């Protein structure tokens, strides 16, 4: 379970998140919608531990443990997974080398034994087949020269291999055509489970046609202004964000 309590975040003198509260229960898929520049991506980065943000107050708890004290890799080992809006290209690092290093680093951190190569290969190949990730893509350096859609599929492939407790999807639909959106969404849906929760961050309702959320939260000016069921997303699609922006001001 993810609990964000009274979170205040600044970058320098600028306040980005202003007293945000949010709970995502096990098995739940929560969507966060909101206009651009409202702090949605900041929330995803603060949960996953990127540097450069000042958390001035509040807590982010995963299964009752405060994540804010931990390094990004320690959070990952506890089960946090961020699917990046812009996955980073790392030339020179083979995708397979990276995948194995990531899986085994998390296993070591949890006191589990390292995965042996045949087992690792089988898991990668199975996950890759489901997501339409080609062998050729796996042979390339990580995300290097990948199209937008390929990068997003690679993110979901990593999530499938790492089996997190919490998946944070930051604008996963951006830059995807309908076919890629469907593939990626199917990949995410296949990972929905009783012991896993998702935070799906999106600007558009479109993604939520494919990944059906249990709860929808509308965020503006660094706070959650309304929460509801899937119908809230449709309402937002109809009315836009302008009411929320004036409400928050």
């Amino acid at each position, binding site marked *: 379970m993810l609990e964000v309590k009274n979170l205040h975040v600044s970058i320098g003198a600028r306040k980005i998140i202003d007293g945000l509260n949010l709970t995502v229960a096990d098995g739940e898929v929560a969507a966060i919608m909101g206009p651009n520049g409202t702090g949605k991506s900041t929330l995803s980065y603060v949960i996953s531990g990127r*540097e450069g943000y000042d958390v001035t107050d509040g807590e982010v708890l995963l299964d009752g443990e405060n994540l804010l004290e931990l390094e990004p890799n320690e959070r990952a080992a506890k089960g946090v997974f*961020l699917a990046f809006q812009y996955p980073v290209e790392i030339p020179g*690092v083979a995708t397979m080398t990276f995948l194995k290093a990531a899986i085994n680093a998390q296993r070591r*951190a949890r006191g589990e034994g390292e995965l042996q190569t045949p087992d690792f290969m089988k898991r990668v190949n199975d996950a890759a087949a489901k997501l339409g990730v080609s062998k050729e893509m796996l042979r390339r350096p990580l995300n290097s020269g990948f199209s937008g859609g390929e990068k997003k599929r690679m993110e979901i492939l990593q999530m499938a291999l790492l089996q997190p407790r919490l998946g944070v999807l930051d604008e996963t639909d951006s830059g995807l055509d309908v076919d890629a959106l469907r593939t990626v969404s199917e990949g995410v849906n296949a990972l929905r489970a009783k012991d896993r929760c998702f935070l799906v961050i999106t600007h558009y309702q479109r993604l939520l046609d494919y990944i059906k959320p249990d709860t929808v939260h509308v965020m503006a000016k660094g706070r959650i202004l309304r929460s509801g069921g899937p119908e809230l997303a449709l309402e937002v699609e109809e009315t836009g964000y302008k009411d929320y922006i004036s409400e928050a001001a």
Partner: protein
Amino acid sequence: MRLARERSSADLALEQFFERRKHDRAADLREEAWDSFTRKGLPSRRVESWHYTDLRAVLREISPEAAEAGKPAHVTPPAGVVMTSLREALAQGDVEVMAALAPQTGDAAVDLNAALMQDGAVVRIGAGVRLDHPLTLDASAAEGASSFTRNLVLVGESARATIVETAPPLLARGQENHALVLQLAAGAEVELVSDFGPGDPETVRIYSLLASIAQGSALKSSAFIWGGGLLRRQIFATLAGERAAASFNGVAMLGQRAHADVTLVVRHAAPHGKSRERFRYIVDDEATGVFQGKVSVAQAAQKTDGAMQSKALLLSPGATMNSKPELEIFADDVVCGHGAACGRLEAEQMFYLMARGLPRAEAEALLIEGFANEALAEIETETLREAFGGKVASWLGARRLQSKGDAR
């Protein structure tokens, strides 16, 4: 008067070496090189091409001469290859060898090598010969001594070979001035992989490559520098014939107070030549990297295609990189470019890897390895590519152990 300045103890020692050496059949060549050297003396920062590597300041004392330096190990050459020692070739006045020994670079260290060369291997690869396995040439000297050695490889027309030039770790204080003369006849293809092992902090090593690449021939060179004291890799290459191709790649992995200088001069003398220079530096601790690259295109060398690039990754606040790329173009129809980049590990890449579970040190090592891998990818011979990949990984392993030790 030859020496306008006051002669140092190093100058005197070198003069003694020369007195002992100038009596063989290469005497004229040695004399000429010695004259050229003494007009300049050991290069200091005031010499432009040695600006970042003050050899005069470092070489205050010359270690005693190594006995039998450069004497080639006795090996049975593969079919189509003839091997002899430089000493024997000089004693016999081998005309082809003599002719190949006199490239005029104007560089003081090469002059000194020509004047004082003791021994080395002479390898002739016959026309049309295709070698399946790499030939290994030793560039090593005795430890705790100074040595002047030279290997000569003459590659016949349309021959094909992979050559591994190795300088094993030089652990005791030692000084080495080694040259490899590599001449490719028309249509020859050579891959040269040079492995300059780590050295003791007191070592001073200069490895020169003097290459000439004839019509339609191709040289692909990769150099690995693993640190130590002062090391300079100099490359003087001439693309002498039409459609000659040359690529010079390399990686320097430098820690502690190592100083590694790669200085290259690539001359395009004929049309339709292609050259690529790509060097990468990983500079840690208080180490210093130097890249000086000059691509010179003669007026006759129309349609030259040249690109030069150096990239440095600085891993500590005390690390230094000096880059000086130069183009000198006298032809009007060419495509030539250069680039130099210098930076730290990218925060975005670090965060991405850590967000997937890699601890900081492991994420750093993976990125550094990735940076080096891009140069490793240039090695065509798969077994060598893998072997050097292993060496990069061990260098990084040692670095991590060291940083853990420092943290304790």
